[in-house]
C-alpha cells in the first residue's frame, strides 16, 4: 500500500467506469480503514463494520473485496487467487473487477504483488515485508459451529472462554485417535484471541505465524474484519501429547516435482486414475521454469483442458 497515492476524499470517478477508484466511495473506505486499524491493534479480534452491498454476491469474496478496495492504491500490483490458483473463475472475476474499477496492475506472481487477495490458500512462496494478504472469509467466528449465537460467542471471546474448542479437539482424539479438522483449523493469535483462519487447509497454518506480511481478513456478509499484523504469533491449537501436524502426501507434484507444496488431486479418467499437482499455480509454474520436473511434466492442468475445449468448440 502506498499512502500518498490514495486519492483524497471526493476524488472524482476513475476513468470511464462512472464509479470511484476501486468502486467504494472514499467515506466508506475511510470507515473500513478505521476498522482495519482497530483490527490491527487487537490482533485476531473480529471488528464489526458497516459492510456494503457489493455488485458481487455475498459469500463470493465481498469482505475481501471491500478490504482490498480500501487499502489498494493506483501504484499497487494485485494478485487474486482462489484455491491457490490465479485462473479459477472467481479469482478471474475479482481480478477483472479491480482491473476495471481501479485500473491497477495485476499479476500472477506472488513476489511481484503488493496486495494479494486469496480464498482458501496462502501462497507457497514466502511473503515479504510490505505485502498485504487479504483473505476472503465466509464465517469469521471460530466458535460458530459450537455456539450459533453471536451474543454468546462475543462474551466467550471477552472472557477468553475457549475450553469448548479444546473439548471438541479432545473429542476428535478420543473418537478417531487424532484431531480430524483438516481445514479451518483454529488458531490463537498473539496469545489472546481464538481466530478462524478462513477455510485454509491446516497445511497453511504455520505460514501465518510470525509472517512479515500484513494479513487482513474480510467477512462481508457477516460484517466483520480481523487482522494478524506482521511478525505476530499465530499458534494452532493442540495438546502436548498430540502436537499440531500438517497434511502430507505420498506423492510429489506430477508437474514440477515439489515435495512440500499443497497438492490438488486431478481426476484424469473414470477408471480411478488421478494425478497430484500443486494447488499454487504460480509456484508450480516458477519451479518448472527453473527446470524442475515431476513424473508427468507434460500433463495438462485442469484449466488447460477447458481452454482446449473452448478452442475446439
Amino acid at each position: 500500500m502506498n499512502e500518498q497515492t490514495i486519492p483524497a476524499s471526493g476524488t472524482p470517478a476513475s476513468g470511464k467506469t462512472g464509479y470511484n477508484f476501486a468502486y467504494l466511495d472514499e467515506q466508506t473506505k475511510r470507515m473500513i480503514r478505521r476498522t482495519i486499524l482497530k483490527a490491527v491493534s487487537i490482533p485476531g479480534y473480529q471488528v464489526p463494520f458497516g459492510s456494503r452491498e457489493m455488485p458481487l454476491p455475498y459469500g463470493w469474496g465481498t469482505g475481501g473485496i471491500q478490504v482490498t478496495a480500501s487499502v489498494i492504491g493506483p501504484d499497487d500490483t494485485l494478485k487474486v487467487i482462489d484455491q491457490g490458483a490465479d485462473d479459477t473463475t472467481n479469482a478471474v472475476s475479482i481480478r477483472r473487477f479491480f482491473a476495471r474499477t481501479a485500473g491497477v496492475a495485476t499479476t500472477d506472481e506472488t513476489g511481484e504483488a503488493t496486495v494479494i487477495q486469496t480464498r482458501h490458500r496462502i501462497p507457497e512462496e514466502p511473503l515479504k515485508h510490505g505485502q498485504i494478504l487479504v483473505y476472503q472469509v465466509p464465517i469469521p467466528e471460530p466458535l460458530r459451529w459450537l455456539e450459533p449465537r453471536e451474543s454468546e460467542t462475543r462474551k466467550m471471546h471477552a472472557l477468553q472462554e475457549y475450553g469448548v474448542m479444546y473439548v471438541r479437539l479432545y473429542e476428535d482424539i478420543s473418537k478417531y485417535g487424532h484431531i480430524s479438522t483438516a481445514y479451518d483449523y483454529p488458531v490463537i493469535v498473539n496469545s489472546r484471541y481464538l481466530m478462524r483462519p478462513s477455510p485454509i487447509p491446516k497445511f497453511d497454518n504455520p505460514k501465518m505465524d510470525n509472517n512479515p506480511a500484513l494479513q487482513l481478513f474480510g467477512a462481508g456478509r457477516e460484517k466483520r474484519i480481523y487482522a494478524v499484523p506482521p511478525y505476530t504469533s499465530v499458534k494452532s491449537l493442540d495438546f502436548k501429547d498430540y502436537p499440531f501436524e500438517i497434511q502430507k502426501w505420498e506423492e510429489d507434484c506430477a508437474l514440477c516435482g515439489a515435495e512440500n507444496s499443497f497438492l490438488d488431486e486431478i481426476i484424469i479418467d473414470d477408471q480411478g486414475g488421478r494425478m497430484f499437482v500443486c494447488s499454487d499455480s504460480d509456484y508450480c509454474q516458477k519451479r518448472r521454469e527453473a527446470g524442475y520436473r515431476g513424473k508427468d511434466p507434460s500433463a495438462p492442468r485442469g484449466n488447460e483442458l477447458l481452454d482446449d475445449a473452448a478452442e475446439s468448440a
Partner: protein
Amino acid sequence: MYVAVKGGEKAIENSLKLLAEERRGDSNVPVLTLEQIKSQMAIAVDRVMTEGSIYDRDLAALAIKQAQGDIIEAVFLLRAYRTTLPRFGVSKPVDTAKMAIRRRISATYKDLPGGQVLGPTYDYTHRLLDFDLADHHVNRPEAAPTAPRAVADGMPRVTDILNSEGLIEEEATEPETRQVADLTREPLDFPADRDVRLQNLARGDEGFLLALGYSSQRGYGNTHPFAGEIRMGKVSVEIEPEELGFAIDIGDIQLTECQMINQFQGTAETPPQFTRGYGLAFGQCERKAMAMALVDRSLRSRELGEETTSPAQDEEFVLYHTDNVEASGFLQHLKLPHYVDFQSELELVRRLRGEYEARRQQTAE
C-alpha cells in the same frame, strides 16, 4: 467434469454472451419494455422495490428485465445499485393516517369510520385460469365503475380508535428527532432495537417471513393476531432541509401498511391490553406486510416479558436469516471451487478408513 470449474477469462466472457442471448429469447418476439413490466407486472415491481429497499419503479422494472424475472436476482441488482447512492437526508415519518386510500380493510370491525374499501384485490378472485388473457388481442377489460361517493379523506386508523379507549398499547413514544438506525450502514448488534428489527423485516425475504409468520400461527409462539387494519394507497414524503427549517413535499409513494392487534395478558405492572405488530411495504405487498406484522409482534416477546421458545421469537435466528441477497449469495457460493478443503477432507477420510481397516483386521486375527 469438476475441473471445468477452473475456467479462464474467455469462458466467463462466453458465458456472459450466452446469458445475454438467453435473456433476449426468440428475436421474433418483440422486446419486453420497461413500461410493460411497470404496468403489467406491477406487484413484482413492488416486491423488488420493497426487498431492494429503494422506491424506484423504473429501476425495479429494469432489474426484473435484466434478471429474466428472477425476483431475488432483481433485488440483488437493485441493492447493489442503491449502495452507491449518496444520502441527501432523512425524511420525516410518513403519516399513513393521511394516506390517499386505495384499499382499506379491517377484520376487527364490521363497519368503522371511512368504511371498508376493497380496492383491487385477488382475495375474491376464483383461481381459475382466465384463458381470455392468453389472447393478446383482448386488451381492454370492462371498466371498473366509479364509487358513488368519494373515499373519505383522512381515514382514522383502527389502532388510533382503540387507543382512544386505552385498550391498546401506545405507539412508540420516542421523539421524531431520534436518529433511526440504518442496517445498510451499521452492522446488526444484539439485542436489536425495534427500528432495526423493522428495517430488517421490511428488507427481508417475503417467503421467509411468510413461513415464520405462519409458524407462529401454527403454535410455534402464538401471538393471537387480528388483522386490525390493512391499508394501501399513496402517502406524501416530506423532508425538512436544515437550511430551510420547514418541511417540503418531495413526492408520493405507494405503501401497504398492516397493523396487527394481538392479545396480551398483562403483567404485574401493565393491565391487560392489546399489543401491536407492524408491517409496512412499498407498493402493493399485502402478504409481505401481514407476515412482517406477525413476525414483528413475535420478536417483541422479550420486551413484553413473554417466554421465547419458538423460532419466530428468536431475534438472532430471525434477523440473521431474513436477507435473501445474503442467503442466496452464501448458499450459491457452494458452487465455487472447494477443492483445497475437499482435498484436505479426502486425505483425512482416506487415513481414517486406513486406520479403520487396520483395526478391523487386528480384531479379526
